[in-house]
């Protein structure tokens, strides 16, 4: 009985499978692996908006599939393998922790194209792409340094990886530039998405005197915590989070993946897809600065916008020397700018930041 059921199921699956393969000849199938739910209001939400933009752009020529809340680890490998088996032509894996799973699965499916966000391992059929969030962090730091009255900025980190450390350094340097007395308190949440934990982290930072909260986690919970505390400023992370404006959310970093996803899908359809490494910032529009609200004084807003524009046109690099490392050793000499290699592997704090980066 059981064996018969098994046989029947296998037959049905095979039929489904061949059906999917037959279909994939004329329709380009694009898969997305998300780390949080599409309704997180932040990181995954923006990836899903871009997925919908791909669908809108190509209509019936493209079929998209996504799996949300996929844990970073072996489970991710299973999800990607399943997508590839189901006939996906192009798969976007949208979190740092999917790096090794993506590499493994890409090796198994040489005909499927893979795109891994924020990582650094590539292969013939595996591209990487990321946004220069640290450019946005520079603008945030610039505003935060001038808004704070307690001179304490709270920072909710997710994991101690280069992307997050870059953001902390960039925000700190630009806050310090406008406010020499600034102090950063950093809490590592060890999660990308856990509203309760993020809210707690925000409350703790506020209790310890922070009146500006920067977050590198994906939910809007810290915004809500800041709103409840009153008189605390926040910035939208990954998405605009405009529903919390004009206070506490005074601006935001917005990730706009749509143009990239559309271009890469087009490349697969044309057969011109190649393994590349894309790292775009404010200039090409992959990083956007959300509307700076009226809670920010006009002159601060104007100088922040000037900073944004100078980064966009390339006349200013957020990591321009002289910058020392935390231990006082020289990292960048006067006028020198950081190269991408160092930035991608950044594992040190700049001078002035307190505490150690967890192992």
């Amino acid at each position, binding site marked *: 009985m059981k064996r018969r059921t098994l046989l029947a199921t296998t037959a049905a699956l095979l039929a489904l499978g061949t059906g999917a393969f037959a279909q994939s000849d004329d329709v380009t199938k694009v898969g997305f692996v998300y780390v949080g*739910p599409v*309704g*997180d*209001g932040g990181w995954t939400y923006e990836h899903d908006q871009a997925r919908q933009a791909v669908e809108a752009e190509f209509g019936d020529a493209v079929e998209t599939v996504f799996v949300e*809340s996929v844990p970073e680890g072996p489970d991710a490998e299973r999800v990607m393998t399943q997508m590839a088996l189901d006939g996906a032509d192009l798969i976007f894996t949208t979190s740092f922790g999917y790096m090794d799973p993506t590499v493994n699965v890409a090796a198994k499916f040489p005909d499927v194209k893979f795109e891994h966000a924020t990582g650094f391992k590539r292969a013939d059929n595996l591209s990487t792409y990321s946004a220069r969030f640290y450019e946005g962090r520079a603008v945030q730091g610039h505003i935060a340094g001038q808004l704070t009255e307690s001179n304490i900025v*709270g920072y909710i980190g997710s994991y101690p990886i280069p992307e997050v450390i870059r953001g902390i350094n960039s925000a700190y340097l630009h806050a310090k530039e406008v406010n020499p007395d600034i102090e950063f*308190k*950093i*809490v*590592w949440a*060890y*999660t990308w*998405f*856990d*509203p*309760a*934990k993020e*809210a*707690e*982290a925000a*409350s*703790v*930072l506020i*209790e*310890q*005197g922070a009146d500006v909260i920067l977050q590198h986690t994906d*939910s*809007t*919970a810290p915004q*809500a915590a800041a709103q*409840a505390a009153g008189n605390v400023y926040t910035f939208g992370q990954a998405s605009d989070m405009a*529903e919390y404006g004009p206070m506490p959310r005074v601006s935001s970093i917005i990730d706009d993946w749509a143009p990239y996803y559309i271009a890469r899908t087009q490349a697969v359809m044309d057969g011109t897809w190649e393994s590349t490494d894309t790292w775009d910032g404010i200039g090409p529009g992959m990083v956007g600065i959300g509307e700076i609200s009226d809670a920010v004084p006009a002159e601060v807003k104007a100088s922040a916008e000037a900073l944004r524009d100078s980064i966009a046109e390339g006349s200013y690099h957020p990591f321009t020397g002289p910058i020392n490392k935390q231990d006082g050793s020289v990292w960048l000499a006067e006028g020198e700018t950081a190269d991408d290699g160092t930035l991608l592997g950044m594992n040190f704090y700049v001078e002035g930041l*307190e*505490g*150690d980066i*967890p*192992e």
Partner: protein
Amino acid sequence: MDLTSINPILFFASLMVAATPILLAAIGELVVERAGVLNLGVEGMMITGAVIGFIVAVSTGSPWLGFLGAAVGGALISQVFGLLTQYLLSNQVATGLALTLFGLGLSALMGQGYIGIKAPSFPDLHLPILSDIPYLGPIAFQHDPMVYVGLLIVLAVWLFLNRSRAGLILRAVGENHDAAHALGYNVRRTRMLAIAFGGACAGLGGAYLSLLRVPQWTEGMTAGAGWIALAIVVFASWRPGRLVLGAYLFGGVTVLQLNLQAAGIAIPVEYLSMSPYLATIAVLVIMSAGRSPGSLGKQFHAAR
């Protein structure tokens, strides 16, 4: 580096708040387990309560009605578990796990239109006179009402289990269901009521997250709180008093960990995160008194 930046008053105050959702869920599960039923679906009932509470609170504008709705919703979904395990005699562990998965999916579906909406505010209750006591006042008497509701429920459960005839029957059912049945007590009805109570409490705990702690609806927002509640019941060796201790210990470690980090003290987070579980194991080893109810997790059928 600088411990003085941790304000002890604010620390203990936020500890009470952080512990409340797990306390609520755990006290419900304690009653369920004392009745001899192991319901691993706490997480699923919590998240269902979180979304139903949020929906009711947003549409009526009243957080109190939201909590009521969450309790009813949690109790209803727990009856699915009760029906399957008590009447259809399905495996309790498997059904409980299924309930968790079902709750997570159902809540995501129900919450579709409620993402990014703010919950109606629920002002803190400043108890007159008591809240003016120096130190103790701000720590213990300036919270939202649900913190006290949670503690009152624990007190009520203690009174019920130890000072009432009905509580004695419930414990008898949990210790030896065959004997309780032979004495003429209705084992199934007792257990169904206990399961409903457990569901209602888990629902309240979930709604505390979505209406007060976070306060908004996001998918998967309980993020494992239900499992911690299950662990606390074992930690408390099925006693309401120790349950409060356990919940505050877990809540305290969560808050302490973040406080220490913000103060710049570099204790690896992993050690702090595992400490409550290590404490649970230590307590279980030291106190052999922590015996589980005799019929816990066993199936009952009157004809056997």
